[in-house]
């Protein structure tokens, strides 16, 4: 052991740690992003560990990631067909193109809520950038989306081969916007949950409401036809990020048309802003984590 190489002397400047100095807002955000970038490998390990855990605890392992969205689709198809009697054409595909991203979003947010509080012991024992925790749970959420693309492909090839268009290749573009949005929200909720431990409950209810207020089971057109005489409804509805996302997914998967470029770009800008804001808040609260946990 004595012959071990000396640990890398990453020229750590003798920092005077006190409360009197506090970096600027921009400085904090930049520091946060630097921490994420420099701890890529740690994030990768955390993602791998998470995948292993989710796969190892179930009998069928990763197969559930394929079956789950299909089951959910069948439930909604039956429900909506019985209630409205007059669903959209090719309704299973219509609904699946919304269920898939939504499942990804909810699992990311609900995993992120406990990502910091779950590492309580470690945070009290070791100094490391806590930002890696929500970021890792954001990335491990992506795997559920990627596995969900398998049943989507099956659905398209087996039943709706006439709906296969080159626009399908734009799915990653829409997904990227969603990734940035969920990253910002994940960072935000993970920090707030340290101080309010029942945030997860509140978020679960909020997410359910959000789903039904978004054009997942119905189309955005149906809503605008409701709001002919009340333009504020249409306007508010258009502000919902998931109106833009669901409609864009549906354009490229179901309708074979380009995504809504304008709103999508605007949403990307808003998501980047949310991520910066959340990173700033997280960095501001980070010093208190070890005390409150």
């Amino acid at each position, binding site marked *: 052991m004595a012959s071990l190489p000396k640990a890398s002397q990453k020229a750590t400047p003798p920092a005077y740690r006190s*409360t009197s100095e506090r970096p600027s807002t921009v400085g904090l955000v930049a520091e946060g992003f630097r921490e994420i970038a420099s701890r890529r490998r740690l994030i990768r390990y955390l993602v791998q560990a998470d995948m292993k855990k989710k796969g190892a605890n179930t009998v069928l392992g990763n197969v559930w990631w394929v079956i789950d969205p299909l089951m959910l689709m069948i439930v909604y198809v039956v429900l909506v067909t019985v209630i409205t009697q007059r669903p959209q054409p090719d309704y299973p595909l219509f609904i699946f193109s919304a269920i898939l991203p939504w499942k990804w979003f909810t699992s990311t947010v609900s995993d992120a809520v406990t990502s910091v509080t779950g590492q309580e012991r470690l945070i009290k024992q070791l100094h490391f950038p806590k930002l890696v925790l929500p970021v890792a749970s954001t990335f491990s959420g992506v795997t559920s989306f990627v596995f969900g693309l398998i049943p989507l492909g099956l659905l398209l090839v087996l039943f709706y081969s006439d709906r296969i268009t080159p626009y399908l290749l734009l799915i990653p573009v829409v997904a990227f916007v969603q990734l940035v949005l969920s990253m910002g929200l994940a960072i935000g909720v993970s920090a707030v949950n340290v101080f*309010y431990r029942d945030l997860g409950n509140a978020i679960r209810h909020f997410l359910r409401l959000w789903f039904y207020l978004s054009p997942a089971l119905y189309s955005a057109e149906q809503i605008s036809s409701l709001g002919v005489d009340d333009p504020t409804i249409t306007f508010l509805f258009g502000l919902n990020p998931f109106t833009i996302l669901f409609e864009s997914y549906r354009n490229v998967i179901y309708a074979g048309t380009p995504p809504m470029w304008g709103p999508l770009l605007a949403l990307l800008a808003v998501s980047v802003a949310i991520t910066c804001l959340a990173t700033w808040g997280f960095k501001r609260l980070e010093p208190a984590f070890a005390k409150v946990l």
Partner: protein
Amino acid sequence: MTAPTTPGAAEAGTPGAVPPAPTRPEAVGFDGLPTATPPPAPDPAADLPSVIEVRDLGIRYSLRLTRKNTLRNTFINMFRKREGPKEFWALRHVDFDLVQGQSLAVIGPNGAGKSTLLQVLAGILTPSEGGVIVRGQVSSLLTLGAGFDQDLTGRENILLAGAFLGMDHREVLDRLEPIIEFADLGEFIDAPIKTYSSGMRARLGFSIATSVDPDVLLLDEVLATGDAIFRAKSKARILELVRSAKAIVLVTHDMGWVTEFCNRAMLIEKGAVIANGEPADVVAIHLEHAEEAKRAKLEQIRRYGGEAPKLAR
């Protein structure tokens, strides 16, 4: 396992300031293991660089936030007057310096603030008042195996811990074999951590935590882990680290360790430094205070008519 260290090798890096270490006597200590004399205290006349500087340090806990807080409670409390203390100072007005070559023992009763001090030095807690400077790489062995992932194997956990500690990947790979060899877990190294006994977990944690060669070593009551064989091994490893680190801060309740490992000691009570200086003197003060506390307790018991005071429920 342990390459013999020539006397004075650890100090070789310090230009001429420290006299060569005396050869360590082959004595047997209180726990039946070979003892060591503490490294000689550096000459106070020599102007050595200070490795740790603590200036008027204070750590405040907000009791409002610490209680398991919920949105619901916050909402309820908005309409209710809250009573009870708002804050608690775990440390207040703590001032000390540690120069190169010193090893400091921090002693004191439970809840005095010893672990809190170590958390500040490790960078885990930010001072609420005053500040600290720590020069060089810090390794904190606060508690072993804190970050273990139950579902990963021992080997994977070493990689994960290395990443948490911020080591280069190549560095972790270089250290992988020595760590596995030192932990000596046989084929269990490739089994998930959840199949380990607590002693095995501690062995792996100890091996990982001591695999870094830090400039400043922080130890918080981590010395009594594992079975007899591993204890002897880990003691030798700690001694080696003590010799090669620039500075050590050791928290312990075992006065044997204080005189054996440290050339300075500091007594903390209720968040304040009571004594700071020669280990023997500080230990004496600590024991005296402990004796006083015991006598007060006995007095109290006598007054309650021979019965121990009932615990408040």
